[in-house]
């Protein structure tokens, strides 16, 4: 499998490209950042990779060859599309980190399975130092696989495993597209990143089609769910997006069962995307609650400003907030970063984040990454 991946990668890098501006489709067309297309084959092949380094003032560090992914997609017929993404994560990982173990019990022999006990107040914590060095290893996983049928602009159906269409960050969560290497908790901790099931979406046929909607349903176990942040077999959600010229506002709601804690969770979110000339402001606010007795709530938001200082160079400033009632954890963070895109498929990022965490204390984090679409 490792040889296959390397062969595919070398083929991409070495392949010559024919001019894309002719009046007929060339026999072989490779465009950097847009993949390879053969005239006689309906699908396009492409992908991306990323490498990241992070360090904190607690002497934690991480060097990670994060992703290597291959995409295969295209129009099978006039109305039918296919999409497949195979991804290998953490191909090489070396890290040292300090983890906080919550609800640490010195007398572990007394442990029993009483569910109620899980939700008692947490009083004891301990710090554990973890060091990991993993050999270079490729374990491909199915990140996405779906078939799409376009009935009309107002009604499109997607079946398979797809990205959960909530908010701004999650739909573009891969390193070459993200603005920063460090993710905001509002976009990563509240709902499953992927959904396996059915998605119905489209443009609503009124007000100049300035409304978009997405409804999604999962009623099965997820396809290759090892890397999903939340494992669920039951997930429903809805998102409505309204465009006011170039400004968009999104409202979302959803409900799922978190299999790791065997609890139903609901969330509600709102996000804004405001582009104005060289400036872009984006923000997401999300509120989640656990259902049932001893229910807890969590809330989080981020506000991020992106300014194109000069061509291909972007300054990013972000404010994050996260509050978890369950363990009284409260995080406030400020991030300042720089994103350089020398060519449109390449992203080089450098950033500092100052974090005030009620559980882990104050933290200064530095992160840098390189990511490329090919």
């Amino acid at each position, binding site marked *: 499998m490792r040889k296959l991946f390397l062969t595919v990668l070398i083929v991409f890098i070495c392949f010559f490209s024919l001019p894309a501006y002719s009046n007929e489709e060339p026999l072989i067309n490779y465009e950097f950042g847009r993949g390879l297309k053969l005239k006689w084959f309906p699908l396009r092949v492409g992908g991306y990779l990323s490498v990241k380094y992070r360090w904190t003032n607690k002497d934690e560090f991480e060097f990670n060859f994060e992703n290597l992914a291959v995409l295969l997609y295209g129009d099978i017929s006039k109305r039918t599309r296919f999409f497949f993404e195979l991804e290998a994560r953490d191909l090489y990982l070396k890290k040292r980190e300090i983890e906080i173990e919550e609800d640490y019990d010195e007398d572990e022999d007394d442990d029993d399975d009483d569910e109620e006990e899980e939700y008692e107040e947490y009083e004891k914590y301990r710090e554990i130092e973890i060091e990991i060095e993993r050999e270079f290893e490729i374990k491909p996983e199915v990140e996405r696989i779906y078939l799409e049928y376009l009935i009309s602009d107002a009604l499109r159906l997607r079946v398979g495993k797809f990205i959960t269409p909530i908010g701004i960050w999650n739909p573009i969560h891969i390193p070459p597209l993200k603005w920063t290497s460090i993710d905001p908790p509002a976009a990563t901790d509240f709902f499953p990143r992927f959904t396996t099931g059915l998605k119905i979406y489209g*443009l609503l046929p009124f007000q*100049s089609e300035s409304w978009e909607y997405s409804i999604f349903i999962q009623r099965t176990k997820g396809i290759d769910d090892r890397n999903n942040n939340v494992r669920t077999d039951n997930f429903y959600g809805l998102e409505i997006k309204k465009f006011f010229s170039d400004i968009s506002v999104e409202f979302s709601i959803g409900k799922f069962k978190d299999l790791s804690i065997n609890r139903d969770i609901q969330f509600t979110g709102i996000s804004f995307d405001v582009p104005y000339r060289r400036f872009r402001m984006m923000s997401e606010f999300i509120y989640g609650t656990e259902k049932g007795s001893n229910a807890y709530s969590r809330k989080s938001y981020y506000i991020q400003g992106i300014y194109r200082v000069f061509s291909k160079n972007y300054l990013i400033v972000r404010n994050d907030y996260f509050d978890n009632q369950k363990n009284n954890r409260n995080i406030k963070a400020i991030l300042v970063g720089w994103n350089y*895109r020398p060519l449109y498929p390449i992203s080089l990022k450098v950033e500092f984040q100052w974090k005030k965490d009620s559980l882990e204390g104050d933290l200064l984090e530095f992160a840098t990454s390189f990511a490329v679409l090919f």
Partner: protein
Amino acid sequence: MMRKLITFIFFTIWFSISKAEEIVIIANKSIPVNHISKREVKLIYLKKKFFIKGTKVVPVNLHPFNPLRKKFNRYILNMDEEQLSLYWNEMYFNGIDPPIVLSSQRAVVEFVSKVKGAIGYISPKYVNNKVKILLRVRINGKKSSDSRR
């Protein structure tokens, strides 16, 4: 003094009218409408809208260095080439390719006249009777306006 001011205003208006340019949105005759809005053109070129009254549309673009494409990006899509590149990065990740790129405005007219559902943009001088005009967008200085045929 008043006469000078009137003369100045007259020449300013005349100059701006004489510099006005048009982008013409053309379509294959299979497209079952005679007019579309600027917003619809934008949605079609950003591959957010795929149909016009049930007919699948095929948008065609000029290459990135063509001056008309730069005007089209600016006045119709309200984006520059860098913003568009970032947008198409996201769409590529979601399995959607940008519109087909053709080498010249003549090639656009030829393609649009032959391919069912095709839609393109050209300068008025390239329009012929093999295609239908859906929209004329007048570019006048920094502002643009829709106008029906």
